[in-house]
Each structure stands twice: as C-alpha cells, then as structure tokens.
C-alpha cells in the first residue's frame, strides 16, 4: 500500500498565486519595449512571456504583484497600477 509519495509535474497546476495580489499589479504598456527580456529574467514566478517588441505580458493567474518587472524595465514600459484599476491585459 502507498500513500502520497511523489508528485508528477504534469499533474501539478500550481496554486493560483495571482490571488495574493492586494494593492498593485503590473501593466505592460507595450509601447516603448525593446525586447530586452529583463522582465522575463527577473520575474520570480517566471510568469511573463513575450517574443518581439511590445508583446510582453504577465500571467495574472500567477503574478503576485511584487513589482520587480516594473523596476527593471529600462524603458519604464511597465508600470504598477492599482489592483482593480482600469488597465486591462491584452
């Protein structure tokens, strides 16, 4: 007989840590982006994706709103807005 023993990663969807956000969330302006990929590199969740310029976006299911992406963007193309404010993700 076996109880809980191993976790198969394919079966694990992760917690929806987007629900942790309280005050702020990032808004990807997608205007002056140079596709430097710093936001992708710096996100502790790894929940940002994008390829060409101005295609970068976070995944709100997982984004904890830490604000690091906004801090590192060299073009200030990511801003932190209030959770529940008007900006919507594309």
């Amino acid at each position, binding site marked *: 007989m076996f109880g*809980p023993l191993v*976790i198969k990663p394919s079966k694990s969807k*992760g917690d929806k840590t987007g629900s942790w956000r309280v005050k702020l969330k990032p808004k990807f302006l997608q205007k002056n982006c140079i596709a430097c990929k710093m936001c*992708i*590199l710096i996100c*502790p*969740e790894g929940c940002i994706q994008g390829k060409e310029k101005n295609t970068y976006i976070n995944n709100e299911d997982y984004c*904890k709103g830490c604000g690091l992406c906004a801090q*590192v963007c060299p073009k200030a193309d990511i801003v932190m807005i209030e959770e529940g404010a008007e900006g919507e993700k594309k």
Partner: protein
Amino acid sequence: MDSNPLFKPGHTACAGCGQALAARLVIDAAGSNTIVVNNTGCLEVFSSRYPESAWNVPWIHSLFENAAAVASGVEAALIYLGKKDTTNVIAQGGDGGTADIGLQALSGMLERFHDILYVCYDNEAYENTGIQRSGLTPYGANTTTTPPGAKSIGNIWYKKPMPEIANAHGIPYVATASAGFPQDVQRKVKKAISIKGPKYIQIHVPCPLGWRHETELTYQIARLAVETGLYPLIEYENGRLVAARKIQPKPVEEYLKAQGRFKHLLNNPEQIKQIQEIADNNIKKYDLKIQG
C-alpha cells in the same frame, strides 16, 4: 511564459523572493537533462507542497544537511548506469543548509570530486524557520537570534568565507553570483555545467521578508551589495582567482539603509565604519575598484 518551464509558476514563495528568482535562472540555464537534489529550506518548502510541484525536472528532497551526499549517490548511480555524461546533477540549498549543518556533506562531496554543481542560495539567515542567524549572516544584521538590544548590536560575527572554503578543496570552479545580475547567474551556471568535477556557486539572494525591504527592491538591493563591495562577484578556476566584477564602490550606508535588518545601525557610525571596512577589505583583496 515558456509553455513548459522547468521551474513553474504557482509556487508559494513570497512576492519578490530572490531565491525563487535565482532557482528559476539556475535550472533554466542547466536545462532539462538535470537531476536536482534540494536541501530543506524555503525553496524546497514553497516548491514541493503535495500535491503541487514547481519542478519540471527530476527533483528530490531528503533532509536539511545532506543534499551534497544524496547528490553524490545520484551521481554514483548515474556513473554506474553509464548516464553521467548526458545528465547534470545539481545539489542546492540555502546558506544554513550549506555552510552550517550541511558543511560536512558538502566538504565530502567536493573532496571526492563528484561531478556535481552545488548551488548555495545565500539569503544570509535561516529564513524558512523565521529569520534566524546562520554562519553566512553578515556582521551587524538583525535576526531573531541576533536581535539588537541594550547589550547587542545584532550579529557580531562575520560571514563564513564559503567560496574560499570550497576553493580550498581544489575544485575546478567556484563563483559567486547575485540575483541583481541575472544574466551573470545563468552564464556562470552554464560555465559550471560544462566543467567536469565539483563546482560551487554561491548566489546572493535578497529576502524581502527577512531583510525587511519592499518586494520590488530585490533586484536593486542585490546590486547594491555588489556595488558597495560587500558581495564581490568573483570566479576561481582551479584555485586561481580569474575574474572579479569591477565596481565604482558606493558607500555601504546606501545598502544598509535600504533594509530594515540594518536599521538599528544607522545611528551608529562606529558600526557602519566596521561594515565599510569589510567592504574595503573585499575591494582590496579582489581588486574590485575600476581603475582610472
């Protein structure tokens, strides 16, 4: 995000966690042909809570102090199976699990020359159990077991020189890295993986909770540690210092005042001077100052 990331989002690290960031950078750089052995600590706890796991590579957690020893067994098994050449082995843990309780196992692994990369995520305290002091807690830091008070300025001991201790084992590659320099982390991991034998990389990772700073400052604070000379970014190859990131040194006070764990020192010029001395010694020892 990557459709099949090796370190998946949905883990329960604190927002802005430097260790989560670094762990993701490390496994991305190492690639999917990697077996990871993890010590007990923040990273292990927030990434492997049944039934969820953030790891898309084979990953095992055993105990607090034995990642290096378990990894030695994994490596030996891979050699026996004839698979070592196509499989990377990473043993990783926090500063406590590496420099304190895990020092014996690490030393044995290095001395026996196993083909393993050991990564130490240095957030400078036992953060997972509630911010207690470790052998890598820096001088002056406020931790729950070295709290400042009428009779104490906080942690009175200096960081154990783990990179030098690792280097003294005569291993091919030792490096320090920082969450403030993410591409450098990946470069060093890739370089280490390409070398056969034991490697040691120590990554400075700010902890917003334990260091008491805002979550979005993780990157900046990590950079400040490097830019003040308090956390030199160096590389040893076969015992020789081959690289050190040059800096235009900033005064340590800039780094200290950004974090709550040094708040109690800000009115204490004596102590700030002590810490500046640590930085100055590093700058001298590793020749960190940009010339000209």
